[in-house]
């Protein structure tokens, strides 16, 4: 299992892969449980991404030549 945090897309792909491995039923119990555990961890992190409640909206502001900083964007009011 790779140590590096997978992107959402890769995590979803990996979960799909694990499920189809489990479906095929060729893995020994121990391997199956390992995969299952991996899938649960990935699913948990995907879930966290999906439920990240905070809206992150900012704007890029040029500080000097070729240098930028992120500032909160004042959302335009409804009119």
């Amino acid at each position: 299992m790779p140590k590096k945090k997978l992107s959402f897309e890769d995590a979803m792909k990996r979960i799909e892969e694990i499920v189809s491995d489990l479906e095929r039923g060729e893995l020994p119990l121990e391997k199956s449980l390992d995969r299952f555990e991996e899938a649960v961890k990935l699913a948990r992190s995907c879930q966290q991404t999906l439920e990240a409640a905070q809206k992150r909206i900012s704007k890029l502001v040029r500080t000097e030549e070729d240098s930028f900083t992120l500032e909160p964007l004042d959302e335009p009011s409804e009119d």
Partner: protein
Amino acid sequence: MRPIDDAIEKEKVYSVSEITSCIKDAIESEFAQVWVIGEVSNCKVHSSGHTYFTLKDDGAQMRCVLFSGSARRLSVLPENGLKIYARGRVTVYEKQGQYELIVTTVLPTGKGELYIAFSKLKEKLAEEGLFDPERKQPLPKFPSRIAVVTSPTGAAVRDVIRAATKIHQGVELVVYPVRVQGEGARDEISQAVADLNSLGGFDVIILARGGGSIEDLWAFNEEIVARAVSDSEIPVVSAVGHEIDYTIADFVADARAPTPSAAPALVLIDYVDVKTRLRSLMQQARSEVFGLIERHGQFLTGLRSHYGLRRVSDRLTDRARDIDEMLVRAETSVVSMTDAEAARLSRLKGEFEALSPTATLERGYSICFHGDTKKIVKSYKDVDVGDSVSIKFSEGGVVSRVEKRGKELT
């Protein structure tokens, strides 16, 4: 003193060069960047590639020059009879005492001319292959960071934010503020696309602008914007104007959204059903694993009934312990397990524990081994009076000698 000498005494006298130089300074600083509208006449392209022409209206005319370097960047060039907007600086050619407009930008006037310019550029870029489907980059499946190049105060930015957060709260939106119409818009937009590429870390770029006239949307029909979009290594979604408005940017971009509020759906589409998908995948995974555990449980139960305690081998002991550990691990890892599933897992765990000989001994049973053969004694026939036997309890054991044996003996 003659009056003329008196005047000369009081006022400054310029040489022609001096006055021309002063006029040059005055004119050039006053008209360093101007737009002039007029009709083109006397248009000649010199062998050097520079174009010389006159701009005129009913009351006046003015000499203009368009250098080849500037001409190369333009989609519309001066032609006799064409009414144009020319942008440039006024300069004075001192040797001939003439002023002229050094033109850097030419825009046709009126919608008719805008459409001509639009079609010309479209044709040119299509010929270069900028609209080819194979040049289009696929949009990322689950973007986490989206750049929005737009006016920070317009309706478009609000539409994009609202539509995006409705689909997926967790997405990060970074607005790159630019002017989306008028002077400088095309440069700011193309610069923004280039900057975002050099900054990196963005999964997709959305170019957004609300609806408007062809003039309002013109920046998105400029070649410099088309080139920036085409050069972008980050996929670009063009979301300019209303559904019916097509801009050059739409053709060059990797995807076109009919309106700014439709753009987020295009880039976030995979998030729409992903929660349901994730849940069903995990349910599937769980049922596979539980099925597997159950099958192993049946295998163990089968083993026990077949061989009984007669052949409680080390292998079985180890296996039961392994499975036990695995179950504990699986149990702690199943975060979102339902109560029914948790109960099932703990029942299965209990069954495995019952299989372990250690647990059996704990319930008060003991195992008797023959002193010489070390075989488990299951029948009085396995020993003779006087044989030595060792008895294993849950805790420790004893070695003893058989005094009596018999079928009815307990």
